[in-house]
Each structure stands twice: as C-alpha cells, then as structure tokens.
C-alpha cells in the first residue's frame, strides 16, 4: 500500500471528504470490458446502494476496491487520499471490510477462530483468541451482533454466519463495509434484522456500500444509489428522489414491467398428487418429512422456503432422480414414484414431466457442450432426432435454432458452448428444452437465479403462458417476490415439512417469512 499524499479537491461546503471515491476506473478481462470509466462517490456515514443486473460490473468494481484486482487505469481515494490497493490486506489496513456473497468462512472452525484468521497478532493463537472474545462481546453490545463465539460455523444458520462476516470486518477495524448481495440467502425477517444492524452501523458513523439487485431493499435502507449497466455507471440518485420503476428502467435501459400481468387461474383436474413422501438421507436426517400435496391442470403451485429446507430434494424426487422408500407420487392416474419403483428421469420426461433444475450449472446443462447439444439432454433418445444408428445432428441444430428464435436466445448460435451465453440466455435454453416438449407437469427450480431483469420478465411470461395452456407448474423459488407474483397457491417448506399453505391473494410476505423461519403462523392467527 502506498499513499502518495496527494489530496483530492475537497468537497463543496468543506465537510468531511468522501469515504470512498472511485475515479475513472477501467478493468478488462481479455476482450471483455468489465468496468469502463467507473466513477462513484460515497459519503461517510451513509448507506450507499449499487444496483445493476448480473454482469453489469458491480462485483468487479468492488473487487478492485477490496484489492482482489488491480484496475487497468483510474484511481481510488479513501477519505480524500489517493491510495493504491494491491491486495485485500491493503484494503483491510485502509479500513475497508467486505461481506462476500459466498461467505468467506472456514466451516469447521469456531466463530472466534474465523474472526482472528489473518489478524492473529502473535505466533501462538491463545492470547489472540482471548482478546477476540472480549472484543466480540463489546461489538455485540454496541451493534446488536450477538453470536456464540465458540459455535462452529457449520452449525450456524446462514443469518448468523453472515453476522460473523460482519463481525470479522468490524474486528479488523473496518470503517467502510461492503456487502455483496447480502439478503440472497436470508428470510425476510433475517433481512430486516440485517437492515437494523446496518442502521446502527450508520448511526455509529460507519459507511456501508450495499450491492444488490433487489430494488425494494435499495428503497428501504439506502441514502444514495448508483446504477450500473454493461460495465458503466449510468446514474447516481438520492434514494428519496427516485423510484423502483426509474431504477429498473435505468438498469435495463428500457421500460420494464415489474408486476406480472396475469388472469386468475382456472384449475382443472388434478395432474399429480404427492402422498406421504418421506426421504431420509445417508446421515439419517429427514430431508422430506411426510409431504402431501397435489397440483391441478392450469395452476402454478409455489414452494416457498429458505434454501436447504427440502425443496431441492422434493424436485429430485418428483423428477425421478432420487428414489423414495416411503410414500408415493401419482401422475395422470398411475404411480410414477413409489417404494420399489425404479426412478428414471428419462422415462418420466417421456411421460410428460419437464424439469428445469435449480442449479443449471450443476444439473441443468453441461457448460462445455454447445447450445444445440444442451437442448437434447434428457431427450436424446427422442426418435425425432435419432436415425437407425446415428443421431441426426443437423436436425438437432435446426430444432435448436427454432428454440432460440421462439425464446429469444441471444446470440442465436446453436454451436456456441453453453458457457458462452449469459445466465439469462442459458436459462432460456433450458426452459426451451423442457417447455418445447410440451410437458403436462413442469417442475421449475429457481427459474430466475442469476438472470437479468429483462430475461426475468420473459421467463415469468412463459411460465404464466404454460399455466394458461392448462399445464401444471411446480415453482420452487427462494425469491418471495417471484412466488408471490407467479403462484396461485403457495406451500411453505421448513426442515423437510410443508408447514403451511396459503392462497396467493391472501399471502403476505410477513406471514410467509415467519412460516419460512419455522415459526407457526397460521393465517387465522395472524389475521
């Protein structure tokens, strides 16, 4: 780290200099210009929001501020002084702390061990552990950040793990705290708690930079907001003088519909019914506990819940990936999943169960395969594309080109590797594969994870269209907004159980949030 002592022009009014100032930052990765002439000024003692779609360059900008990358050109000023940040330890020394989207915690370690990692002081850790214990107690009192210092990280719920990350930054003396998509893994109540903590931090004079794609959060907590698009900074606003609609438009570069337009559902006969399904994993934990529900033609059933409460297992059971020992699932009048029945995703697909996997990188696609090859995964035995001996690859390409046109996949190149598409376009390829085979039941997991706003709008419309065409849709999402705007009925899962059902009209975020946290909140009690 090097201070060259040059002072920035002091701001008008002679107040304190900005906590953070980025001036004309540029960063390229090969031919991709991730950041172009990015400028931002963050005033001390404020919460400053940064919004933008995936790939807009928010994370790159923050990675430069935190010393992960070196900017190609441009300068960084902290408290008015131009600095050079070559590594995270430089950033830490300058009072910058970061809470990453994926927590940087060592899971088998205790809270204390995680907190002291990198700032141990001496060669032996005994004294630093004792010092950290005292300091954590002080921080807990001051900011309302209570965590058991001896708990192991892997035993803590995500909300508390995040608190440990904040504590880590404060323990290192952070004056400016960067939070990257902090609410993605939290229940609404946990998110509220986080915002109260951020409030306290602001009140104590700390500066907070909040990166998010959730506009509601920007409106709720920030003082100022900056919008990024395609690697450039497109606007700075005082939060009080802007609206969600304006921000969305700035992010995407055109007007977007935040609300999904849909008519009331007209459900028909029952397509699939899940009866008493229980699933126990290798370690003996119940992943699914006596799950019962059914879905009718022409309705979207939403499954809400914090991730890791059995939703993934439910999708895997329904799609035939995981066999079950207890319970049965009936589809169009006959058992598709039952004890002793060999589960077979390919056979289920043939019978009309489409599955858009939650994690397209892990289950939905093969990233090194071309788009065309990805469009036949799971349907590769389809007679339409198979000759007596060889596959009709021309036909696969042609069909893929058709999908790409109908689903507006950009660029429309069937031979491009899946990894060459943006998240939104990858997801469209997966959706096209499953929807174009005209399933009677469509299982959809996290359809808009890592997908930009423009594509979200498109995907939501297609799901509604599926429903209106009389198909049954099961929607699993951790985004409550998505569940609330798409689903006709909502089930909430907690710890492998269905803890409640509400109709979409009556559901409120509050009530769903409590149910997601496992706190009993029957509608009649809350009303």
């Amino acid at each position, binding site marked *: 780290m090097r201070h060259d002592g040059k002072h920035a022009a002091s701001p008008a009014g002679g107040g304190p200099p900005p906590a953070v100032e980025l001036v004309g930052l540029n960063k390229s*990765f090969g031919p991709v210009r*991730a950041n172009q002439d990015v400028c931002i000024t963050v005033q001390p003692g404020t919460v400053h929001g940064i919004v933008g779609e995936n790939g807009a360059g928010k994370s*790159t900008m923050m*990675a430069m501020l*935190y010393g*992960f*990358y070196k900017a190609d050109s441009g300068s960084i000023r902290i408290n008015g002084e131009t600095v050079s940040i070559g*590594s*995270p*330890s*430089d*950033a*830490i020394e300058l009072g910058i702390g*970061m809470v*990453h989207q*994926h927590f*940087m*915690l*060592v*899971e*088998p*370690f205790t809270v204390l*061990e*995680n907190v*002291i*990692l*990198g*700032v*141990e002081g*001496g*060669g*032996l*850790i*005994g004294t*630093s552990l004792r010092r950290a214990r005292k300091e954590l107690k002080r921080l807990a009192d001051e900011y309302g950040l209570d965590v058991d210092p001896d708990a192991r990280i892997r035993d803590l719920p995500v909300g508390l793990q995040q608190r440990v990350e904040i504590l880590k930054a404060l323990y290192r003396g952070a004056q400016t705290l960067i939070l990257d998509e902090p609410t993605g893994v939290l229940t609404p109540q946990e998110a509220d708690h986080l915002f109260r903590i951020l409030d306290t931090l602001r009140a104590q004079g700390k500066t907070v930079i909040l990166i998010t794609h959730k506009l509601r959060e920007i409106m709720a907590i920030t003082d100022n907001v900056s919008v990024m698009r395609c690697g450039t900074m497109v606007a700075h606003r005082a939060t009080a003088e802007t609206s969600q609609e304006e921000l969305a438009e700035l992010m995407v570069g055109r007007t977007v519909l935040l609300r999904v337009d849909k008519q009331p559902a007209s459900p028909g006969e029952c397509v699939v019914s899940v009866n008493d399904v229980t699933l126990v994993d290798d*370690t003996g934990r119940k992943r699914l506990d006596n799950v019962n529900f059914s879905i009718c033609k022409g309705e979207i059933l939403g499954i809400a819940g914090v991730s890791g409460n059995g939703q993934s297992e439910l999708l895997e059971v329904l799609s035939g990936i995981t066999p079950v020992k207890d319970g049965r699932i009936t589809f169009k009048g006959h058992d598709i999943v039952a004890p002793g029945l060999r589960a077979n995703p390919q056979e289920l697909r043939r019978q009309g169960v489409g599955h858009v996997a939650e994690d397209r990188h892990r289950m939905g696609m093969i990233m090194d395969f071309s788009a065309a090859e990805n469009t036949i995964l799971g349907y590769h035995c389809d007679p339409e594309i198979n000759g007596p001996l060889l596959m009709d690859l021309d036909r696969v390409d042609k069909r893929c080109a058709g999908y790409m046109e109908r689903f507006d996949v950009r660029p429309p190149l069937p031979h491009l590797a899946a990894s060459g598409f943006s998240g939104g376009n990858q997801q469209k390829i997966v959706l096209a594969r499953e929807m174009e085979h005209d399933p009677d039941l469509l299982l959809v997991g996290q359809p808009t994870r890592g997908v930009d706003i423009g594509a979200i709008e498109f995907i939501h419309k297609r799901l509604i269209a599926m429903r209106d065409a009389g198909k049954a849709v099961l929607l699993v999402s951790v985004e409550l907004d998505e569940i609330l705007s798409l689903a006709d009925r909502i089930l909430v899962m907690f710890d492998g159980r269905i803890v409640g059902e509400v109709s979409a009209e009556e559901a409120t975020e509050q009530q769903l949030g409590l149910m997601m946290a496992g706190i009993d909140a029957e509608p009649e009690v809350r009303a």
Partner: protein
Amino acid sequence: MFMTLILLLDSTLRVATPLVLAAMAGLCSERGGVVDIGLEGKMLGAAFVSATVASMTGSPWLGLLTGIAASILLALVHGFASITHNGNQVVSGMAINIVVAGLAPTIGNAIFHMNGDTPALSNAARFTAIELPGAAALKSVPVLGPIYSELLSGHNLLTYLAFVLVPLISWMLYKTRFGLRLRAVGENPEAVDTAGISVQWLRYRAVMIAGVLCGFAGASLSTALGASFIRDMTAGKGYLALAAMIFGKWRPRTTLLACLLFAFTDAVQARLQGVSLPVVGEIPVQFIIMLPYVMTVFLLAGFVGRVVAPKADGEPYVKEH
C-alpha cells in the same frame, strides 16, 4: 507369551518409524490442501541420497541432511506444478514416484555398480540403537523391566524423533498461528485470501514441511532400520502412510494409532513367515506378506465410517472473477 508380545511391539515401533514420519508429512501437506501421493517417491529419493552420502562420507548426519534436501527439492517440484501452475496434484505426485523409482537405481548403478543398490553401511555410518539410561540394570525387573529395556529402549534416534514429532505437529496445527492458517487454507482458501494471507506461500510451506518429514522417513529406511539403499525399498510404505492418514481422519493422534496398527500387522506378518500354524499348517509367505495391505483395503472400505477430508484438499486455488 509375554516376551513374544513385547518383541512384537518392539518391532512394531521400528516398522512404524517411516510410516509415522511419512503420514505426518502427508497430513501437513493435505491439511493445507495439497494432496501428496508423492510421499513414496520423496521417501525413496531421500533413502537413496542418505545412503549414498553416508556411504561416501561415513557420516549418517550428512546423509540425513542431504536426504532431507533431496526430499525438499522433490516437494518443491510438486509445489511448482500444483501450487504455482494449478496442475493436477495426483498426476504431479505420481510423476515424482515414477521418476525417483527409476532415477535412484540408475544413479546408484553409475556410482557403485551394484545393480542399483548402495554398499552396506558400517555401524558408524548409520543411526544405531540408543540404550536408554538404566536399561541394562532394569532388565531383570519383572513386567516393567522388559517393557522398558526391550520395548522402549534400544531404538534409533529417528524412531524416537518420529514419536516426539506427533505431539509437536498436533501442537503446531491447533495452537499456533501457522497451524490455524494451514487448516484454514485446506478448508477454504478463498477465506484465507480475503483475509489478506498468501494462499500460495502457505501451501508452499506445507509441502516443504512434508519434504522435511519425508526426508527423515527415507533416511530412517536406509541408514537406521536398514544399512543400505535397496531398489524399491519403500515398497508401498508411502501409500500405506497415506492410507493411515485417511484412516486417522487427517488428525495427528489418530493417524499415529493407524500407523501403529499397520505396523503391528507388518510385525505379525514378519513373525508368521515360515511358522506352522495349527489346522492350516504353514501359510505361503506371499499370503502373509499381503496382510498389511489386505487390512488397509478392509479398513478403508468398511471400518472407517464417514471420513471428511479437508474441503479444499486437492483443489488448486484459482481466483475467479
């Protein structure tokens, strides 16, 4: 019967020496996230260099030092491939094993013309048995006498060193800053990187420690337990050490116990050769030699239960953007 047991345990300790040292080497490397299948090669290399230098200079100490140096050099090759260049750690380790298995006898043959082996070392050029004080006097005391004078006394320096190192390594892992960081980098290198610590330098230190320990292990084979370098004298001990480390769940104390168990079967194996057993008669020697390896397979397959390796073990650390 009692004396038989004492003698069996006595040879267990001797056989366990290179195993314990190599297993601790693997443990240090893997807790830091670098898989070390090259224990075998490093040990073999050190055994060769130690025996060669000891036979040329007559000093076991010079042999030991040069053996360690050779082993560190091999460890650095492994580090360069797998830490600096994010290469596949198993391939790099295996390459070391193969290269050393060929190179050592070739060089040995060029120097000594003994078909790849080195000449037998005189006792002055070896680490010989150390009598603990009072061992002779206590010999006649019942029970405790034999335990002290036969079992505990009369081992070479490197054997004692191996057993002293286990608590030291345990202390290093769990009580020192270096140990904390080492364990962290094997679990989540990103967390270490964001804490402002160099992942690469930490991992280099981990493989170098493994190099030093393998150096001790190799020297113990050719200049303490044996008296010359013999082609392929490690005979899979590096892999056995790796198995012991996994069986011991990457923890020093349990790994030590696993090593002792393997060594004990080996000692039993040696004792059973040529002995006529009731009912079955004499078992062909090939079957008996298989014992420790068969047990390894069974233990690893069935009895270990859920083994959780360090999460980032074997994963090169590549920064994402």
